């Protein structure tokens, strides 16, 4: 499931990465709903991509939630197998599109 939502966010004074962290926190980021890998071998339930427009333009937030499990494959960097990629998994509780939009609106 991919949800694209525009929300007014003022991220002046913070980095884009910090703004991204604020977004995934608002979406309920955690072990049960992991949207950002802390380690390359983490199990992820989705991802977030954001266009950080300056006000008065809204941020464009794209939330992808995996609907099917996907086994990891070997991670090869510059020809050397360094481990395995993250596991992509459907969350135990699948959020609705409106759930995600409501949570993003808390950032406005």
């Amino acid at each position, binding site marked *: 499931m991919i949800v694209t939502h525009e929300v007014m966010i003022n991220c002046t004074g913070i980095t884009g*990465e910090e703004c*991204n962290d604020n977004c995934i926190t608002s979406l309920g980021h955690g072990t049960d709903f992991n949207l*950002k890998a802390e380690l*390359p071998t*983490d199990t992820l339930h989705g*991802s977030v991509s*954001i266009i*950080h427009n300056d006000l008065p333009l809204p941020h464009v937030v794209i939330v992808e939630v995996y609907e099917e499990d996907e086994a990891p494959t070997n991670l090869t960097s510059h020809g050397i197998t360094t481990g395995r990629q993250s596991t992509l998994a459907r969350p135990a509780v699948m959020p609705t599109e409106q759930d995600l939009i409501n949570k993003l609106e808390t950032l406005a």
Partner: protein
Amino acid sequence: MASVIRGSDNFDTTPPSVGKVVLSSGNISNTSTSFVDVTGASITITTGANPIYIGACFSFRNNNVNYDTSFNFTIDGALQMGNLGVIQDQGSATSAWSLCAPHVQSVALSAGSHTIKLQWKVAGGTSLMLANGNENVQFFVNEIK
């Protein structure tokens, strides 16, 4: 006296198709560990049975030292630079920006409409691509004929 050699009556006189996108409205962040589109970096052109040249140029960083950010192009959904694409790992500081300018020449495409996209993924953490008025993303496609 100079001689004039006449070309084939079937010589293709149509100019090559080109497409260009500049992303400059706001920086773009991403946490996906599988390839996803760089939002807005999509070009659809109509070509003859010719190869195309695809290029992009931008700066980015990841907020985790040593973590990879990978980039790839797709033509009609098919990855063009292998399954992993071009990879840059974050150096010694998360504040450091990397310049990335991938470019590819495709095989000859079928004549018709084709959609070309720039995609990216991270090994972990968050990657940020500069796409603002001062430091924008250039993404372009040129038909080769």
